[in-house]
């Protein structure tokens, strides 16, 4: 377990990685106008460099890097902590946010002749706010700090859902907001009980002090319930499909790829970092069952969708279910396999789903609609876009070679190694159903029908989407060193 007492070398990078998008937000807001997109776009390479630098430091140190804010150690002060999965998520977030920023540039750049426009300023400020919030979530070491980050994430994501102002998007945004607010307040209630029980909110200190008492169990249940609402795990998933399907493509990519992963990341922190000492097998099984239900229900409903973006949104609901299989699978002697599987699923889904939403956006603009039945022959006029969809679909289904395949293969391995054969059923069933809905998209597109473009697609946007899906595929080739890196800082019960 990492000591929380001192700042380690490279720790200052953790503060910089949080503050960079925050500074960007302030500078985008005050002069306003065109500066918003300039600042957002210019800050992306620096953010990516910071994330890589953090990963480099964590790798070199072999243990988490720590920063004590204000030089004051917990419990009175706040600590920031980056371990293996933090670093990996920081890099992934930087890449996807950068891709979304450049993808969104044609649509959300301030139009000529206007000094400032509503959708532009909103988009660039919200994008940077999401980035800042995610970075805090990935490196935060204090539960209340993480609550503020969750609120920041919600307040940034909700306006993106309704940025184009149509009534159905506003209703979807409102529903999302109410679910998210319920999630935050439930989380905060858990935080109150944790503090009342142990007098600290620092993750490392809590892990040392926590005991199996009713107070702790209630706090854990409340926090988990709140985080599940924010991650849209079945049955609290109702807000997600309308919100993600009706948002503009760049926003949907970030929402599905990153925002829901933020609250999931905190669920991992709660159960694997604070509470590993608790006998939590039953909770793991409950979460696994809910995840399985999400996989089946989400995939089945996705199969019945008429609109491409709604299909992709329900696919997100299903793929989130896979994430929760990490709870039963990353326990016991083979926990490293289950852990690697979970993180690989987060990454593979993030990149593949972002690419799919980019493609759906390109498609909708090029063809004027996103009705699946009317996609006949579209692959011939939009070859790059459909290549992206095909490769992304490969990862979602879990066929080799792809990150999705790696994730599911590791999950199957972990199920067998830990003797929990039952989990192989939803994994395989989910793969078959996913193949079903990917097939539904590709079959009409590859047919011989004639179709004409309303608008030719922008080459830069197609390339960005293809690049993201290439990352999803490349993850399938991740070496063992990558999985070893993910183990840095993970508490393993029973080891000294």
């Amino acid at each position, binding site marked *: 377990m990492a000591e929380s007492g001192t700042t380690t070398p490279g720790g200052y990078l953790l503060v910089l990685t949080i503050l960079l998008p925050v500074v960007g937000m302030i500078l985008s807001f005050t002069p306003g106008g065109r500066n918003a997109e300039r600042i957002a776009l210019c800050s992306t390479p620096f953010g990516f460099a910071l994330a890589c630098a953090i990963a480099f430091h964590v790798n070199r140190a072999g243990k988490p890097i720590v920063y004590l804010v204000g030089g004051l150690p917990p419990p009175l002060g706040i600590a920031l902590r980056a371990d293996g999965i933090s670093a990996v998520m920081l890099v992934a977030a930087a890449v996807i946010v950068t891709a979304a920023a450049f993808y969104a540039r044609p649509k959300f750049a301030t139009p000529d002749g206007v000094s400032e426009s509503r959708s532009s300023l909103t988009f660039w400020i919200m994008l940077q706010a999401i980035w800042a919030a995610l970075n805090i979530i990935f490196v935060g070491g204090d539960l209340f700090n993480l609550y*503020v980050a969750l609120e920041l994430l919600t*307040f940034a994501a*909700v306006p993106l859902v309704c940025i184009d102002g149509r009534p159905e998007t*506003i209703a979807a945004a409102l529903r999302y907001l109410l679910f998210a*607010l319920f999630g935050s307040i439930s989380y905060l209630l858990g935080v109150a009980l944790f503090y*009342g029980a142990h007098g600290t909110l620092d993750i490392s200190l809590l892990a040392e002090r926590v005991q199996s008492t009713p107070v702790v169990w209630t706090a854990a249940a409340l926090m988990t319930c709140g985080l599940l609402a924010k991650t849209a795990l079945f049955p609290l998933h109702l807000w997600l499909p309308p919100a993600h399907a009706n948002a503009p493509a760049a926003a949907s990519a970030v929402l599905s790829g990153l925002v829901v992963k933020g609250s999931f990341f905190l669920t991992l922190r709660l159960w694997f970092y604070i509470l590993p000492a608790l006998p939590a097998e039953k909770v793991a099984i409950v979460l696994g069952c809910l995840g399985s239900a999400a996989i089946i229900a989400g995939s089945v409903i996705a199969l019945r969708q008429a609109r491409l973006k709604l299909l992709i949104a329900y696919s997100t609901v299903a793929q989130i279910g896979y994430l929760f299989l990490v709870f039963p699978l990353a326990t016991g002697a083979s926990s490293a396999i289950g852990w690697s599987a979970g993180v690989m699923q987060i990454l593979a889904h993030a990149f593949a789903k972002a690419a799919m939403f980019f493609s759906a956006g390109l498609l909708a603009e090029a063809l004027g609609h996103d009705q699946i039945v009317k996609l006949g022959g579209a692959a011939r006029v939009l070859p790059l876009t459909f290549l992206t969809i095909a490769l992304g679909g490969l990862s979602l289904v879990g066929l080799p070679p792809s990150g999705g395949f790696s994730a599911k293969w590791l999950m199957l391995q972990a199920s067998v190694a830990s003797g929990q054969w039952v989990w192989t059923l939803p994994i395989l069933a989910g793969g078959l159903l996913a193949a079903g809905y990917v097939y539904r998209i590709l079959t009409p597109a590859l047919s011989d029908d004639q179709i004409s473009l309303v608008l030719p697609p922008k080459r830069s946007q197609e390339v960005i989407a293809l690049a993201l899906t290439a990352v999803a595929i490349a993850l399938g080739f991740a070496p063992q060193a990558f999985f070893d890196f993910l183990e840095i800082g993970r508490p393993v019960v029973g080891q000294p």
Partner: protein
Amino acid sequence: MTPSVLAGLTGAALVGFGLYGLILHPHPLRKLLAFNLMGSGVFLIFGIVARRGASAGFSFDPVPQAMVITGIVVAFAASAIAVALILRLSAESGHVTLDPEVWTGSNGGDTM
């Protein structure tokens, strides 16, 4: 029964009432009110944790109280965003409902 325990139980009751209102009321503004009620119940629980932590010459533990102050401001900001969305929804469409059936026109839903 000390004031702390009484306030704590009041907070628990408020969380219950707020949850009831949040789930039950169809109108989003009533849901928002219920959410604020729940929030103040949660803050009360922070408050009793603070009061119970009186020691070392302080009559309260300052850390939870500072968290409540932060939380109150954040809850207000949330209410403001929700109100803005509710008013815009009402202006755009004439009715304020979160019922998904109303919003899925011919364009969405799961019709083949």
